[in-house]
């Protein structure tokens, strides 16, 4: 009974999604060299703000977590802490080849190779590194996805937390974050609303 109800979007959901996609705030976690492509994307030349995308400075305020470049084991831990501080709906965007398969660091012993084993990645921007045009086109496809209600990877973190936790533990030993993710999912009714 509930199955059908929850898979269908109500008119209100559609209106809300179409308003929400007009405002996306981005927290960029600049570990690698990819961050150098962001200033031209934000400033006068390419002007990201015309799509309502703005840089924000704290995880609490942000909607998009942009991982620009490789993640070492040490920085991955920080990224996970930051991700769990963000308020859902939240979207992780992997930026550049390093987040997809390790890129030029593929055989390094301190970097992780696939980001989506540790965090639910909504979208990848391929390239080493992607130019501002690619970033803008990528964000536009993210905006479309949000408008259609298809950008639901953040729910995956609540639903398949064991998978992510297992991979995180594999890297760090036993990691302790400040959020009890499954309890949060139950409290805010995210786990019940299965797609």
């Amino acid at each position, binding site marked *: 009974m509930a199955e059908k109800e929850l898979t269908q979007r109500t008119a209100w959901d559609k209106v809300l999604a179409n308003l929400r996609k*007009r*405002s996306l705030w981005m927290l960029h976690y600049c570990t690698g060299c990819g961050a150098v492509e962001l200033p031209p994307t934000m400033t*006068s030349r390419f002007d990201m703000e015309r799509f309502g995308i703005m840089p924000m400075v704290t995880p609490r305020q942000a909607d998009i977590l942009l991982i620009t470049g490789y993640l070492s084991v040490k920085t991955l831990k920080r990224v996970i802490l930051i991700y769990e501080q963000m308020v859902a709906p939240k979207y992780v965007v992997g930026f550049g080849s390093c987040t997809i398969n390790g890129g030029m660091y593929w055989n390094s012993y301190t970097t992780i190779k696939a980001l989506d084993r540790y965090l639910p990645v909504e979208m990848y921007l391929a390239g080493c590194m992607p130019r501002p045009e690619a970033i803008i086109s990528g964000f536009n496809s993210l905006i479309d996805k949000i408008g259609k209600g298809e950008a639901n990877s953040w729910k995956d973190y609540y639903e398949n937390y064991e998978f992510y936790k297992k991979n995180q533990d594999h890297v760090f030993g036993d990691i302790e974050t400040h959020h009890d993710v499954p309890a949060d999912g139950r409290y805010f009714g995210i786990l019940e609303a299965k797609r």
Partner: protein
Amino acid sequence: MNSGIGLIVWIIAYPFVSFSLGVLLGGYGRKLTARIQRRVGPSWIQPFFDVVKLMSKKTNVSHGYMHDVAMMMLVGGTLLTMYFVPVPGFHYFSQFGDYIVIMYILLVPPLGMALGVGQTANPNGSIGIARALQMLAGYEVTFVLTFIGFAMKNGTTSMYELMMIQQSGGVATWGLVTNPLLGVAALFCLQGMMNEKPFEVVIAPHEIATGPMTEMGGKYLGMMFIQHLINLVVELTIYMNLFLGGATNWFEYVAKLFALFTLVMSVNAVYGRFRTDSALRFFWKLPLPMAALGVILIMINGI
């Protein structure tokens, strides 16, 4: 519309009117800044999208009871101020409270913010609050002084009566024209009051990570945005009523609101940010002596 059904309709509708005006003003300000920087800029009603986005967040992080209550104080205090400030067609509450009352209530939102941010226990937030209070010492003294001078000259502290006196003789009786020293000093204070550059030391995103807003996410930040948008309208209206002769109709009101905001945002777009001590020094070196001189002139000449 200051009695009966009309009054009730006004009281219910006014927050929404004020919020809508705030959204238009905020969007206009961001568009203007973008155009000055030769960008396309966001949508004209971008603040509306932001507020909807923030209020429709699915999860929330509360830091405790005071954190929740502070948001009520923030929005409630601003709404209360809004009712006491006369606008064209609605000045019912201004007969119960003059500017001195408004001055008191204007301090409720910062106080609420201080309490709420105190509970989040974020060092950036605490620094932001400390800076906000320091800035208050900068502009509030001067702004009160300009008001005292203006009230002494006209023999009343009621904002509505001051507005009516200014409207009696057209532009020649506007506060800014009759007492330019006070008017210009208050204009500096307005810039500080609205937290725009060069006095943007409270938010300072690159320095203290948006200060008081650091730990605010989702619905909390949404409430702060709503407060900010209504506050834009309230603060501009206070300056307008004191020095630009208020407004006789809504067309004039909106025109003056946008003109004044254009001035504020233009300064905001081309200046960098002062350090806290530089900002305070500036306020006490230029606007404060100006306002004091204006008050002394009024005491001597009665003009």
